[in-house]
């Protein structure tokens, strides 16, 4: 408590006298004192910093990753809380993908190489766990092999594509696992590809997504739980977890999570030239709605956020910035779209799908729903900018693509045998099919409360109705939404499939929408191709799509690859299995320069637009400088 007093004296004078003067405040203070006594039990961890608080000059406030109360930091959970989930603060990936250059940046791994039958990774010899033990190839192999043993782990699906993960020493020999080895441990990891499903792309994706866990700690713990993962999952890992990252969990409550710098981080020497991060604490406040993050950002309470901040140009006056200082402000990599259910009429009809694609006013969506944060949408599934641009063919899109064109939409409807009937006030009454029967209303599902998606859906529905397609919004509880998506309980449904930039783009975007693997009827869950496109058991199955999807990952010849992508994209445009609507960033990145300078931006592009801790964005923590007022 001694620290408390010294910190209290640092309180601004105004505040102190304010407290002293007002009797009501004094009463309140007593009440609050009692209150925090009540809260004591829960704030055990918070009590560690003895109420001293986080000094502004050494603290970075980030948001956009944690929306509910933190529950667990267990790295084996599929969805642990920030900073463990998808962050490099505590546990680290082998490599980090740079979405601007398309290169992999070393982290735990010093280098990697792709061979015909395998992918090989060499670990940084300096990589250490915070208990001083080295990060070994055994750790890497163990992390991946857990996925073979426990099918519910996120890493499990990779084993479709892997034959084995082997830990080799310099000499290329396997050495027996020794949990406490500090020397002579293996540093080479060989990922042997499954010859039948050769796909180095998914392995590369995993190398930059999977966080490595310490075998010497986890293995005995798991054994102590009898190997029962469900039991193990109950461990919270909220105290003194062994990890390799530059930060450690400091405190957490329902209002915020904080991490603190680990001054003994191995990478300070090995990767950052002996420098330690300039930021001591990174705090993630948990607010209750999206707009509160915007308020906090423009008031300088947040330093960076990964939330959707509409009309950022209005907030620029208050110091909120994004990657670009003018339109479109952000770099896009994802494609929110309407997934189409191919098992429900009238969506089975390609003319109907193309009519929809011609009907939707993409400009309104871009300008109103996403504040104009992207380039105008072009047809197809390949991004016409950035790293994917090389696979994009303008000629193809001109020839086969669909654009906003109500007249062509009406023509497609006619071609499909559909006749819309409008009322006297111009409102669509119903759509009739060839035989004069009413076409069932197409409902567009989206979760309630997701404001940008809601706007997108409203505009889409409005423009579809305008040309004569009987569509309606159907906003459902988020809890009902996901189930509907996977079980195919929808006509059209909002989704942003496979959004994160990764080495496997754009292949993985095509794959998640069009693969026929694990094809399941409506009612059963499908986590890919939720629209049940191209049913292999149904007439009209196009085996060519699966063939292309299987072959692309192992193609090495650029010309061959280009041709394959062109073909795939043309198929997509012709059949329009789904309806892409707009481009948007995978993760938004806004920042305020009020307290920290040298944040990456288009003008200072030393890192891609990512918040600190998020993949390569981690490196920002060494580069930014506190603003001295």
């Amino acid at each position, binding site marked *: 408590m001694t620290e408390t007093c010294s910190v209290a004296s640092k*309180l601004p004078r105004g505040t102190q006298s304010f*407290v002293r003067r007002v009797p009501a405040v004094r009463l309140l203070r007593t009440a609050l004192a009692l209150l925090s006594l009540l809260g004591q039990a829960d704030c055990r961890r918070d009590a560690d910093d003895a109420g001293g608080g986080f000094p502004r000059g050494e603290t970075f406030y980030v948001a956009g990753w944690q929306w509910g109360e933190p529950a667990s930091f267990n790295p084996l959970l599929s969805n642990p809380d920030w900073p463990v989930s998808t962050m490099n603060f505590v546990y680290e990936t082998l490599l980090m993908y740079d979405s601007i250059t398309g290169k992999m940046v070393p982290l735990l791994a010093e280098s990697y190489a792709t061979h015909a039958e395998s992918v090989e990774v060499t670990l940084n010899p300096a990589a250490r766990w915070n208990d001083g033990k080295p990060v070994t190839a055994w750790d890497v192999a163990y992390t991946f092999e857990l996925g073979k043993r426990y099918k519910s782990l996120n890493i499990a699906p990779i084993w479709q594509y892997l034959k084995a993960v082997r830990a080799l020493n310099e000499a290329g020999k396997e050495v027996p696992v020794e949990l406490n080895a500090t020397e002579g441990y293996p540093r080479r990891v060989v990922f042997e590809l499954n010859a039948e499903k050769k796909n180095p792309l998914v392995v590369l994706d995993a190398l930059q997504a999977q966080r490595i866990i310490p075998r010497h700690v986890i293995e005995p713990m798991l054994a102590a739980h009898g190997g029962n993962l469900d039991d193990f999952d109950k461990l919270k890992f909220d105290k003194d977890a062994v990890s390799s990252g530059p930060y450690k969990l400091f405190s957490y409550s329902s209002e915020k999570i904080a991490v603190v710098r680990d001054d003994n981080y191995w990478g300070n020497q090995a990767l950052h030239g002996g420098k330690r991060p300039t930021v001591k604490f990174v705090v993630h406040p948990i607010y209750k709605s999206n707009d509160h993050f915007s*308020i906090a950002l423009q008031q300088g309470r947040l330093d960076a956020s990964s939330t959707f901040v509409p009309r950022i140009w209005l907030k620029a006056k208050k110091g909120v910035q994004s990657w670009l200082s003018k339109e479109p402000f952000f770099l896009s990599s994802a494609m929110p779209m309407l997934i189409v259910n191919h098992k429900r009429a009238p969506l089975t009809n390609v003319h109907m799908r193309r009519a929809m694609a011609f009907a939707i006013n993409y400009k309104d969506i871009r300008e109103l729903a996403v504040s104009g944060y992207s380039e105008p949408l072009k047809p197809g599934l390949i991004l016409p900018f950035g790293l994917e641009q090389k696979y994009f063919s303008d000629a193809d899109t001109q020839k086969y693509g669909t654009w906003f064109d109500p007249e062509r939409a009406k023509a497609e409807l006619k071609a499909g045998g559909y006749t819309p009937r409008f009322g006297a006030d111009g409102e669509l009454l119903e759509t009739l099919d060839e035989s004069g029967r009413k076409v069932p209303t197409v409902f567009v599902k989206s979760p309630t409360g997701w404001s940008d998606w809601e706007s997108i859906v409203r505009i889409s529905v409005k423009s579809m109705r305008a040309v004569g397609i009987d569509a309606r919004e159907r906003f459902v509880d*988020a*809890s009902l939404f996901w189930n509907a998506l996977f079980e195919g309980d929808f006509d059209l449904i909002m989704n942003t499939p496979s959004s994160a930039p990764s080495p496997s783009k754009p292949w993985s975007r095509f794959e998640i929408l069009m693969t026929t693997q694990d094809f399941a009827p409506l009612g059963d869950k499908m986590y890919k191709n939720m629209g049940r496109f191209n049913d292999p058991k149904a007439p009209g199955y196009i085996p060519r799509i699966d063939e292309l999807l299987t072959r692309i990952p192992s193609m090495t010849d650029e010309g061959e690859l280009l041709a394959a992508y062109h073909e795939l994209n043309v198929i997509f445009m012709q059949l329009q299995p789904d309806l892409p609507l707009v481009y948007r960033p995978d993760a938004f990145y806004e920042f305020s320069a009020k307290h920290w300078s040298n944040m990456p931006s288009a003008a200072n592009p030393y890192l891609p637009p990512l918040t600190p801790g998020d993949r390569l964005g981690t490196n920002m923590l060494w580069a930014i400088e506190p603003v001295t007022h």
Partner: protein
Amino acid sequence: MLNQYPTLKHILGRAGWYFVTFLVAVTINFFLPRLGDANPVDTMMAKVSAGLDTASAKEKEESYLKEFGLVELDPSGHVQRDAQGKPVRTTLASQFANYVGMSLRGDLGSSILQHPKRVSEIIKAALPWTLALQLPTIVFGWLLGNVLGALAAYKRGVFDQLMYPMALLASAIPAFCFGILLVYVFGIRLEWFPAVGGYDDGLSPALSRQFIASASYYYVLPFLSVFLIVVGGQAIGMRSMCIYELGTDYVKYAKLLGVKESKILFYMFRNAMLPQLTGLALALGTMVGGALITEMIFSYPGLGMAVLTAIQGNDYPLITGCTLLVTVTVLIANFSVDILVGILDPRIRAAQRTGK
């Protein structure tokens, strides 16, 4: 047997009715959230299933279903399956039996959304904030409202003509509108007070002067947003009660007899106050409901938000836990006021004795 102790008998009688109310409320608490066809495990699955293949997702789903008692288990603890191999879901009735059993043991179960956190843990962390925001607001607002209402009724004239429409207006403004207005004007435009949160992001709850100062500063807007409305509503009620009392024979008679004005005022205030006590109990009852919107507008920590997210995510154990807590609080508040009014009000005291 208890006839010699009418007050005790009255209390026991009321307690009996409250207990019945409680039982029914508990049942409603259980069944109401389960009316919809949403399944909380689907929500969990949505969070965890990204990237899982179908087979492993199914396995994971079953382990969750098992944990939350949503599937029937055979004696050896394995999931029972129907002819198609799908797990057999438990009936609502057996879930209810399970819930009652657990509640009796004081076990509220673990949350689904914040798995594996215990419901009691979550409530314990959130409740103090809600109480700290709502309790003083309601109690002080009630007191001030009553004093103002009584004054307006007694003084009439300009004071009443000014106060009464203001109070009416205050009670007509929906709490959330007022809250939004406060955030907009004082939080965002003028930046006099923080717009978001319960205390400075750089602090943690502790018994330090710094924290308390910060929490008090953050308290101002949420407090005002509820306080003024409570004052308005209570003042109106008290004013009309007092005007009614002023017109009664005993006040006229006392005036004729020349009883001291302060004494008349005291009696009048006491008599008018009693019905207002019931209003206080009801206000305490709507505490968590009211807290919900306030907490949402100000991102203020507390139970209301926990309830809302739980409801949106179909987190049954948390919903049931929270509503159980609310029900118990309201019942206790109403019960105490019932008893208190019975003890304070001579008219009701007499009625208790005659049993009518």
